[in-house]
Each structure stands twice: as C-alpha cells, then as structure tokens.
C-alpha cells in the first residue's frame, strides 16, 4: 500500500515539484502551439514537394511531438533532483525505488498522451485531414502506447542527465533523432538501410505506422503486431532506464558520483 501511494501520490507531487513547464505561460506555447507549427511546416513542405498526403504528416508529427513532454519532463523530474539538491534527501528515504522513480513516469506519459492527442485533433482540424470513423478509438490507444514507449526512452535520458547534470542537450538530440528515424516525416522504407534498422528499435516508429493504418481504415487486428512491438520497445527502454538509475545510485554510494553539486 505504501509503495502504491509512493507511485501515485508521490509521483504526482514530484512531477509538480520538478517539471517547471507546468506554468501556463510555458505549457501552452511549448506543448499546444509548437506541435501545430511543426505539423504545418511538414504539411506545406509535403504539399510543395508533392511527397506524401497531409494525413501522413499530421499523424507523424502529432505523435512524434509526444517526445517533447516525454523526454524533457522525464529527465527534469528525475535529474532535476540534483539541481534542486534534493537528491540526497530522496536517496536516504527507505522508499522502494521502483515506485519512487517509475511513479514519476506516469504523469509524464499522461501529459505526452494529451499533447499528442491535442496536436492530432487540432492539426487535423486546421489542415482538414480525414480520419476513418472506426479509427478514432484505436488511435487514442495507439497514442497512449506510443507516449508510454517514449517515456521509456525518457527514463534513459533521465539516468544520463543524473550523471551529466544536464538534460536539455540530450533531450534535444533525442528529439531530433526521432524526427528523422521514427518515420514521422520520411517513410521508414525510404531511409538508408542502417537507419532503417535503427528505426525499428526506437519508440514511436511502430506507433506512428499503426496510427496511419487505422486512420486509413485498417482494422484494429491488422495493427496489433505494430502496437505490441511499440509496447515491447517501451518496456525495454523503461527497464534499461530504471536499471541505469539504480546503477547510478549504487555507484554513487561507492564513488560519491552524485555527491558533487
């Protein structure tokens, strides 16, 4: 019961404490306005170059933008402990580490889900793209799974930020990497073969592909494989991220690596 409370209540309080973008003056432009600009940029490039449909770019960029809250917020809510000098106080509590750290991932993934969903709905309305009626509910599920998978990558980002004492640089690099590799704007089969292989192992690739198929009228059954792959990738990243955070804590007791401000 105590661990359940640490996961839910503790996770939410620490998210509020450490994610400074929750201020409306930052949240609205960063999470609600920016994805629309990104969608419009690629839709107009696509139209100008006569490459893909508007729907291709709207779905791809709406889901890919979940990476902003998932990467930045996850890194801030864990690595930010070091900047606030609260890390030592956290580490000397007897709280179980799994709910302590993963509890912070829940509000992060939830926010990523809402940002991507808003971008998809608003982007579709502005650009005027059509989504098959049968696809709405499954697409919501795909967005949730994709946000979870991206949060898994965010946990690895957080572990590195904990040691490096810097979160924005790596978050930006990962966001840029996903922009290229996830198939948001360039079809995966058009990527060079090496990048295509990397693309198969990053979050969002399978989620974006599944959402596009659902929007074009495919059945839920036809995307179950993609959805499962996205969930598995998310789990793998989350497990690795958590292991890295725990490893960092253990190393810190031995070498005082997290002690230096």
């Amino acid at each position, binding site marked *: 019961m*105590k661990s359940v*409370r*640490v996961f839910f*209540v*503790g996770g939410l*309080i*620490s998210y*509020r*404490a*450490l994610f*400074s973008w929750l201020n409306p003056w930052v949240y609205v432009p960063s999470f609600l306005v920016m994805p629309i600009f990104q969608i419009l940029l690629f839709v107009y490039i696509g139209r100008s170059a006569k490459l893909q449909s508007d729907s291709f770019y709207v779905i791809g960029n709406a889901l890919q933008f979940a990476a902003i809250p998932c990467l930045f917020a996850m890194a801030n809510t864990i690595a930010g402990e070091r900047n*606030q*000098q*609260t890390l*030592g*106080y*956290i*580490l*000397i*509590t*007897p*709280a179980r580490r799994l709910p*302590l750290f993963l509890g912070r991932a829940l509000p992060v993934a939830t926010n990523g889900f809402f940002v991507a969903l808003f971008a998809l709905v608003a982007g579709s309305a502005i650009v005027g793209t059509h989504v098959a009626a049968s696809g709405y509910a499954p697409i919501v599920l795909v967005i949730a799974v994709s946000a979870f998978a991206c949060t898994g990558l965010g946990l690895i980002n957080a572990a590195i930020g904990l040691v490096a004492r810097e979160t924005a640089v790596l978050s930006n690099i990962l966001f840029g990497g996903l922009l290229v590799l996830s198939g948001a704007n360039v079809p995966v089969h058009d990527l060079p073969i090496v990048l295509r292989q990397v693309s198969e192992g990053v979050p969002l690739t399978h989620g974006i592909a599944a959402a596009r198929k659902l929007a074009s009228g495919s059945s839920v059954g036809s995307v179950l494989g993609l959805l499962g792959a996205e969930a598995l990738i998310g789990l793998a990243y989350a497990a690795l991220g958590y292991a890295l955070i725990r490893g960092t804590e253990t190393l810190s*007791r*031995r*070498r*005082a690596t997290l*002690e230096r401000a």
Partner: protein
Amino acid sequence: MRLSRSLAYARNVAVVEVEELARTYRTSTGILRRRTVEVEAVRGVSFEIAKGELFGLLGPNGAGKTTTIKMLITLLLPTAGTARVLGLDVARNAREVRKRIGYVFGGDRGLYERLSGLDNLRYFAELYGVEPRVQKLRIQELLQLVGLAGREREKVEGYSRGMRQRLHIARGLLHDPEVVFLDEPTIGVDPVGARELRATIAALTDAGKTVLLTTHYMFEADALCDRIAVIAQGRIVAQGTPQALKAGVGEGTVVEIEVYGIEDAVVERVRALDGVSNVGLEARDQKQVLVVQTLPGRELVHAILGHLHGSEVGRVSSREPTLEDAYVALVE
C-alpha cells in the same frame, strides 16, 4: 540536567557505534592524460553515542564532518571501518537504517521551491511511509514545533532562510526517527531564529531522541552538547564533555590584547615566551586581537606587552578558557 543524562548513558547501550571509519575519495582530471587523485576525507574515526545523548562533531571546513555523517546516513559507503546505527550496519542494512534516522542539513537548498511547505512535507511523509491518517496530524504537530503553522501553504521559494531551516527540521522528524543527524542546522540563520532552532534541538533529546550535531558555533556546541568530538584532517583529535575539553586546554588564563598592524615576528616572539601554551591572531571589526593562552599560575601580561613595544595597543583583558579556545588549540 546534563549530569543526570550522563549517568543515564552509562547504563545504556550505544545507539551509534563508529569504529575506525574511513572514506577516501578518488577524483580524476584531464581527458587525454587522466590523472587520479585520492583524498582521504575521513581517516579512521571512532566514537559512540548513547541513547538520548546530544553528541557534537566539531571541526574546520573539510575536516570530514559531513563525510562522516553521509556514511552514517547511508548516502556513502565507508572505504574502511564499520558504523552501526541502532545495531544495524550502515553499509549492509541501509534500508532498515533509513527507516530509523532523520537527517537535517543546514542551508537554504534541498527543498522543492515550487511546492508549498506543506506539499514538501507531504511528499517526504509518503517516502517515509507515514500512514495517511497519521500524516495530517504529524505534519500539523511539526509545523507547530518549528513555528511554521499558518505559513505552510505558501510556496517555499518565498520562504526566508530561517523558515527553510525550520522546514528542513520538520522534514527530518516526519517519521519520528530515533536518531537525528543535524549538519550545521543553524548556519546563516539570524540570532533570534538560531536561538529558536537551538531550543527545538534541545527539545529533541528531551523527547528521547539521540542527536548527532555538527556546528561551527562553539557556544552552540557548549550549550547543547553532552559530549563533543573534535575532528581535524579526517581524524578525531579530542573527545569528551565540553567541560573536559575546556579543561584540556589547561587551567590557565586567556589574555586578549587589541593590537593594530602587528608583525608576524612579534607574534612568534610572544609564542616563544615561557608559560605561553598557544597564540592566535584574530581579526575583529577594524582591529586585530592577539589571543594568548597561558599556563596555570603564570602572570604574563607585562611580558607580552613588553614584546609589543612599538605596536599600537588597545584594550587588554583576561578571562577563563572557552570551548572555542579548546577547539582552536586542538585543530591548529
């Protein structure tokens, strides 16, 4: 009060047991030519703290006080030696130790600035597993204890330094720990606030808690601590009651002479006087004060003044040795 508590310790088992505890830091510099430097922060310290005792750990900056505390609170592993808190090894039984200890670090960082004081406490109450029903009452009690009742819903970013310190103390006591580690808890706090904090610290032992306190303020250690260990360059150089430490300086007198622009050679000549046990030169406001500790039964004021011929001399006074004199003599 202190005597009766001291008698009680003799009957009690030690709550904190530290044996030959050591910690070495290894740091590397350079990218192509890596150079590793080892720093021995703590070099085999040993001490015990009995139940209900308020034990002071004094020492200059970098002496190893905070490193010792960090090992005791399970944040750092010792490189040698052992430490047990309530019979639990701090290296092997970290989680069990954490349930039973509280830690308060001085300074105005270490709190969630964007949260209210109340939410800071609520969060840590969750991490310490304080039951929701108990939590509300406990937080209210602690807010009363540290004088933050009525201000708990304000964001911490608007708190004064003293308020932050008090919030630190409340956080350290949320789970009603048996042992409390206080690392310079009154640092930077105004005199009135510091006095209130000292009263709060004194109340902890009255409530049966065992306290380890580090401080740079000698009068604070003298007033609060039952026993004191002085640590310098990673080693304990003296240990005992404040009275015993003061007596260790000798039964002599401390002569203080205000001087202006005194030369080092003059200080050395005073130091060489027969009957002088220690000499220090302190800067106080616009003047310097030559502090000379003399051996018992020696009247050296005239001899010292004789050596100051040619220097501008102000007020001359003599007094009994204080804990600060004992401390200076031990760490210099």
